[in-house]
C-alpha cells in the first residue's frame, strides 16, 4: 500500500516536471506579485520592512491558489482519475499523495524562494527563521485545504473563480498565524505559540482534508 502511495507521489512529480514549468511559474508569479508592492507603496525601507512578512505571505497564498485548479482537472480530463479511484488504495490516500506532490511542487519551492524576497522587501534579519519555519508548516495547510476546494470544483463550469471564492476565506487563519510569527520574531518575541497553532491546524487538516476531498471527488466520478 505504501508502495503505491509513493509511486503516486512520484508519478505526480514526474508529470509536473515533464509538463514543465509548474513550479517555475508559481515562483515567478510569487516574485512578480511581491515586487509590485514596492512599486505600489513606495520604496522607503521602513515601510517595506513593516509590510514584508505580510506581503510575502499574501503572495505565497495567491501563488498556491493559482496552482490549485490543475490539481485534479488534468486527471479528470484524461480519465486517469477513474483509474486512480480503482486502486486498492482508499481515495482519501490518493488525495493525500496528490496533495503532498502538490506541496512539493508549489509550497516547498515558494518557501525556498521566500528568503530572497525577504531581501528585496527589507525583512528584519531576526524574522527570517520564523518566516521560513511558519511557511514550512503553513504551506502544506494551504495545499490540503486547497485540495478540498479543487475536488469540489473539478469538472465545474468556471471552476477556477469559484475555487478562489471557496478557498480564500478558509486560508485566513494560516495567513494570520504565519504573518504574526514573523512579526513577533522581528520584535524579538518568542514565536513558538504561533508555530504550535500552525502545527495544530496542520494536524487537523491532514486528517480531515483528504477525507472531505475524496468525498467531493466521488461526485465528479459518478
Amino acid at each position: 500500500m505504501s508502495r503505491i502511495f509513493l509511486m503516486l507521489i512520484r508519478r505526480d512529480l514526474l508529470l509536473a516536471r515533464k509538463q514543465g514549468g509548474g513550479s517555475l511559474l508559481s515562483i515567478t508569479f510569487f516574485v512578480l506579485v511581491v515586487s509590485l508592492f514596492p512599486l505600489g507603496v513606495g520604496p522607503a525601507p521602513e515601510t517595506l520592512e513593516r509590510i514584508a512578512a505580510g506581503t510575502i505571505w499574501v503572495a505565497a497564498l495567491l501563488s498556491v491558489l493559482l496552482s490549485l485548479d490543475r490539481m485534479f482537472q488534468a486527471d479528470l480530463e484524461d480519465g486517469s482519475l477513474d483509474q486512480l479511484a480503482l486502486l486498492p488504495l482508499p481515495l482519501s490516500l490518493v488525495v493525500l499523495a496528490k496533495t503532498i506532490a502538490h506541496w512539493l511542487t508549489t509550497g516547498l519551492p515558494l518557501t525556498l524562494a521566500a528568503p530572497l524576497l525577504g531581501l528585496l522587501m527589507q525583512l528584519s534579519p531576526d524574522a527570517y527563521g520564523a518566516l521560513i519555519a511558519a511557511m514550512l508548516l503553513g504551506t502544506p495547510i494551504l495545499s490540503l485545504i486547497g485540495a478540498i476546494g479543487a475536488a469540489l470544483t473539478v469538472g465545474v463550469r468556471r471552476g477556477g473563480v469559484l475555487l478562489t471564492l471557496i478557498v480564500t476565506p478558509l486560508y485566513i487563519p494560516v495567513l494570520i498565524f504565519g504573518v504574526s510569527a514573523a512579526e513577533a520574531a522581528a520584535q524579538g518575541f518568542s514565536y513558538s505559540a504561533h508555530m504550535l497553532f500552525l502545527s495544530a491546524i496542520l494536524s487537523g487538516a491532514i486528517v480531515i482534508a483528504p477525507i472531505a476531498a475524496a468525498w467531493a471527488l466521488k461526485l465528479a466520478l459518478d
Partner: protein
Amino acid sequence: MHRFANPTRFLRLAAAVLPFSAAVAALCLGAGLVWGLFFAPPDYQQGDTVRIMFIHVPAAMMAMGVYAGMAISSGIALIWRHAVADLIAKASAPIGATFCFICLLTGSLWGKPMWGTWWVWDARLTSMLIMLFIYLGYMALWQAFDDQTKAARAAAILALVGAINLPVIKFSVEWWNTLHQPASLITMSGPKIHASLLWPLLLMIVGFGAYYLTVLIYRVRAEIHLRRTRMLRLAQADRHAAMQAAE
C-alpha cells in the same frame, strides 16, 4: 426525522407551523421595535445610538445560528441522504447571508458615531465579514452544478468544512486585540445589560428567529414546488416524444 424526508409530509407540517411563526415574528418584531426605538431609555454613554443594538445583535446571532443550522442539516443530508435537509440548507444560505450583511451594515452605522469610523479591522467585524464570504461561496457552489443532487452533496461538504473552520477563523482573528466590546448578553454571570434594554432586545431576538423560520418555510416550499414542476415538465416531454414516435 426520517418522517420528514418525505416532502409531502414536510409540506403538511410546514403549513401547520407557518401561521404561528409568522404571527410570532410580526408580534415580536413589532413590539420589540416600538419598545426599543421609542420607549427604552437612551444609554448614559452612547445616547440614542444604542438603539442600533436592537437590530445589530439579533442579526449577528442569527447569522451565526443560521450557519450552524445549515451545517447541521448538511450533515444530516450527507449521512442519511435526507432530501428535505438539503433543501433546508440551501434555503437557509441566502437568509443567513442577509442577516450577516445587516449585521455588518448596522455595525458600520453604529461604528461611525461611536468609534469615529465606518469600518475597523476588529476581530468580530472581520470574522463576520469572512462568514459573509463563506455564505457567498456556499451559494455560488450550489449554482455551479446542473445536477441538483451533486450540487447538494458538494455544498454539504463545503458547509461542514466551513463549520470546522469557522471557530479556527474566529479564534485566529481574535488574535489581534479588539475594539469591539466583549460579549455582554451571554456571560457566565448572567446578562450585563440593564433590564430596560434587555427585554426589547430579547423580544427582537425571538422575532428574528421566528422571522427566519417563516422565510425558511416559504423558501423550502417554493423549492419543493419548483422541483415538482420540473419533474412534471420532464414527464410531459417524455410522453410527448413517445407519442410523436408512435405516429
